[in-house]
């Protein structure tokens, strides 16, 4: 028989205001096995833990139940507390009477009754708990960073500087990401390339960093400390070891009509290309769908002009299999598709563009060589309208429910840059709210208004109507002036909502990392563990976790790196002891459990056993504890009940069911 102690937490008033904790204590005392019960203001505090410790000693407790917040919050806390006072940490169960009770119920009697039942279920379970010993697993001292934008680069640099090997996998031909497409950055207006390219060079030259560009993660298996990853290195059709990056092939390539991804389709590129001049590696790839040689078999110009003999049409995709201890996701973002926002005439007029497209227009290496001009007729615009929140803060199915966070600031930047360079151009910004929390952010926005004369109007735009004369009629509301505005513009720029890069879905599935309804990766805790995924060993860097600007991204990238370094610094990890365990006297050796095991943790061996005096050779299931992650799929497949899950055994769960239904 267990000797159980029950500890009911007030959590200040979080629990105590809705649950009669004294009543819970009183009721718990009547449960079988309970020899001690008490309540306290904050069980998780030092004093609360000391109280638990004292009770363990004084009452020789063999198991404890803490009625408190979610086990996802403090299970670890109370387990280490138990351990400190000499109790096996797996003899602790939590009754979640906060998130699942006090916070969602108003009626005290009802909430108290429920808390008593939840406590009863936990007590019933702990009555059947058995001490468990955590095993150990090794840590591969190498990290994988998925995504080679500023987030991925920064994370990789920080990990590498701490002395660990890092691989970056980037799906495009060059690292650099979205930041490389930007012209200037807020709130300092320094040139994006000037601050990014040195980091790209550092990463490329770092002895601990290996960069796989034009590559994608194809398969992930294993678990924290010991992931095995297949990386598909797509055929570049150019031998990187021979290419000198002279660029002649791109110049001579006769197929030049492919929309440039880097320039957001505003300009064209050749079939053999590097996305931009400062690309790293400076090795072009052949786009096989655009290449004449690949389409028709004729051409081969690049091969002829390449002095280094680097062109290799026969190159094949290569699969690289590598082991990693930690994985960082830094897959970044894209702007949403605007095909459902035709009231803004994005698909009807070339002069309606997104802000990211404007970055390319403003950039000296962009499609207009940095001249601000209309993409329809090349004329210099005199009147430019910016529309905020296009697809952000939308409750309807067309857009996103969240604020994209960066648009207010980059619009102020664009407005300022235009007014600075072209003082005769009028700039009007239609906004709903101007959101500028951040160091020097509001000052920046105010400068746009006060020093640069940017015209900010509070009110959303209803329609952009292209006019026969080529101008755009913008129909908007001025809410502060209570009037409807109809103004002609030469260009309209849409602050388009951002969303996680679509590739993140597949990656999240491979990593079994959870994502939210907007496809942002979920953090382990929104406040306290913001750079970790709930999946152990998977970390989050940059916009894949939520909208953020460059400084925040860099900060988070560093934070993710620290978490990775902390993990890689360990030689061994303790493993989850809640693994499957077969009862050899009941096992039929039928083989069904192995069929449903996602980790290949179950094998069969023929063993001599003694079944109540009968000695015989039997085929029996064996579980590899290092591989088993404790899902329990096998336990249900097993008809005889031979396979059970430690910590969540059949009897424990049935005891909980019984306690609840009693």
């Amino acid at each position, binding site marked *: 028989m267990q000797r159980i102690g029950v500890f009911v937490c007030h959590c200040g008033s979080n629990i105590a205001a809705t649950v009669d904790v004294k009543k819970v204590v009183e009721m718990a005392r009547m449960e079988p096995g309970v020899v001690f019960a008490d309540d306290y203001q904050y069980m998780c505090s030092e004093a609360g833990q000391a109280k638990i410790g004292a009770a363990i000693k004084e009452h020789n407790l063999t198991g404890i139940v803490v009625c408190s917040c*979610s*086990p*996802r*919050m403090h299970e670890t806390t109370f387990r280490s507390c138990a351990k400190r006072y000499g109790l096996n940490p797996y003899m602790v169960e939590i009754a*979640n009477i*906060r*998130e*699942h*009770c006090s*916070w*969602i*119920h*108003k*009626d005290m009697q*009802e*909430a108290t*009754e*429920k808390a008593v*039942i*939840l406590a009863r*279920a936990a007590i019933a379970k702990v009555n059947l708990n058995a001490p468990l010993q955590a095993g150990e697993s090794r840590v591969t001292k190498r990290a994988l960073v998925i995504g080679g934008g500023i987030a991925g680069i920064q994370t990789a640099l920080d990990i590498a500087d701490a002395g660990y090997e890092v691989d970056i996998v980037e799906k495009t031909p060059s690292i650099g990401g979205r930041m490389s497409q930007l012209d200037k950055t807020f709130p300092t207006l320094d040139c994006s390339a000037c601050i990014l390219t040195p980091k790209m060079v550092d990463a490329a030259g770092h002895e601990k960093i290996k960069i796989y560009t034009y590559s994608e993660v194809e398969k992930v298996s294993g678990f924290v400390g010991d992931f095995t990853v297949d990386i598909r290195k797509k055929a570049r059709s150019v031998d990187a070891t021979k290419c000198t990056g002279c660029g002649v092939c791109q110049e001579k390539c006769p197929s030049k009509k492919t929309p440039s991804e880097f320039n957001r389709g505003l300009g064209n590129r050749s079939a053999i290309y590097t996305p931009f001049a400062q690309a790293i590696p400076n090795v072009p790839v052949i786009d096989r769908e655009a290449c004449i040689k690949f389409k028709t078999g004729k051409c081969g110009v690049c091969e002829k002009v390449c002095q280094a003999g680097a062109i290799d049409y026969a190159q094949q995709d290569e699969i690289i299999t590598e082991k990693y201890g930690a994985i960082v996701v830094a897959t970044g973002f894209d702007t949403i598709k605007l095909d459902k926002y035709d009231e803004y005439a994005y698909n009807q007029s070339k002069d309606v563009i997104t802000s990211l497209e404007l970055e390319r227009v403003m950039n000296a290496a962009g499609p207009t060589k940095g001249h601000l001009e209309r993409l329809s007729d090349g004329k210099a615009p005199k009147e430019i309208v910016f529309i905020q929140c296009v697809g952000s803060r939308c409750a309807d199915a067309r857009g996103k429910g969240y604020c994209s966070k960066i648009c207010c600031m980059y619009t102020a930047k664009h407005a300022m840059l235009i007014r600075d360079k072209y003082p005769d151009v009028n700039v009007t910004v239609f906004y709903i709210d101007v959101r500028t929390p951040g160091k020097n952010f509001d000052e920046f926005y105010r400068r746009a208004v006060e020093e640069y004369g940017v015209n900010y109007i509070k009110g959303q735009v209803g329609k952009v109507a292209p006019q026969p004369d080529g101008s755009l009629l913008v129909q908007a509301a001025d809410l502060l002036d209570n009037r409807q505005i109809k103004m002609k513009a030469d260009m309209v720029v849409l602050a388009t909502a951002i969303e996680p890069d679509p590739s993140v879905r597949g990656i*999240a*599935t491979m990593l*079994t990392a*959870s*994502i*939210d*309804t907007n496809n942002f990766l*979920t953090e382990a805790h929104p406040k306290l563990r913001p750079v970790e995924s*709930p*999946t152990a060993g998977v970390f989050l860097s940059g916009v894949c976790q939520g909208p953020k600007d460059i400084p925040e991204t860099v900060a988070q990238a560093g934070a993710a790196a620290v978490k990775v370094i902390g993990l890689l610094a360990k030689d061994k990890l303790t493993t989850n002891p*809640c693994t499957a365990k077969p009862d050899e006297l009941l096992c039929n050796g039928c083989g069904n459990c192995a069929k*449903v095991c*996602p980790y290949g943790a179950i094998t069969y061996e023929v063993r001599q056993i003694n079944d109540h005096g009968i000695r015989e050779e039997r085929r029996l299931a064996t579980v590899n504890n290092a591989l088993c*992650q*404790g*899902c*329990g*799929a096998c*336990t*249900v*497949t097993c008809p005889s009940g031979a396979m059970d*899950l430690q910590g*969540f055994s*059949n009897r424990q*769960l*049935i005891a*909980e*069911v*019984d306690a*609840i*239904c*009693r």
Partner: protein
Amino acid sequence: MSVNEEFRPKIVAFCCNWCSYAGADLAGSSRLAYPADVKIIRVPCSCRVNPMFILRAFEKGADGVILCGCHPGDCHYSTGNYYTRRRMTMLFSMLDFIGVENGRTRVEWVSAAEGVKFSTTMNDFVAKIRSLGKNVRLGDLRCKD
């Protein structure tokens, strides 16, 4: 129907640790109320739930059992909920076959981010069970009166 208004059903909710239990936590921290009739049992994965647990609950007097797991494709253990889906489809179909009201059992996929879905699901499920009234059938399958 005044009986049903008084009726407080016993409802067992099995929630997987990684998605649905976290979704329930989020419902809690977002103060999204649902009836106290629902009591949650934490399991590592929805695939840990043995049909025997569900039958046991009914036999012990539960009026409804709901099983929540990660969305298919998002299982923390990659494939667990796919097995759950087949097993529960079979079990529910059998219960329906023997005449147990099919509204008493349900599977819902609730992610860690879906606090709202967790709460609305539970509200909806409780309303359904209340409308079905007390479960007597699984309790007296062999006891013909």
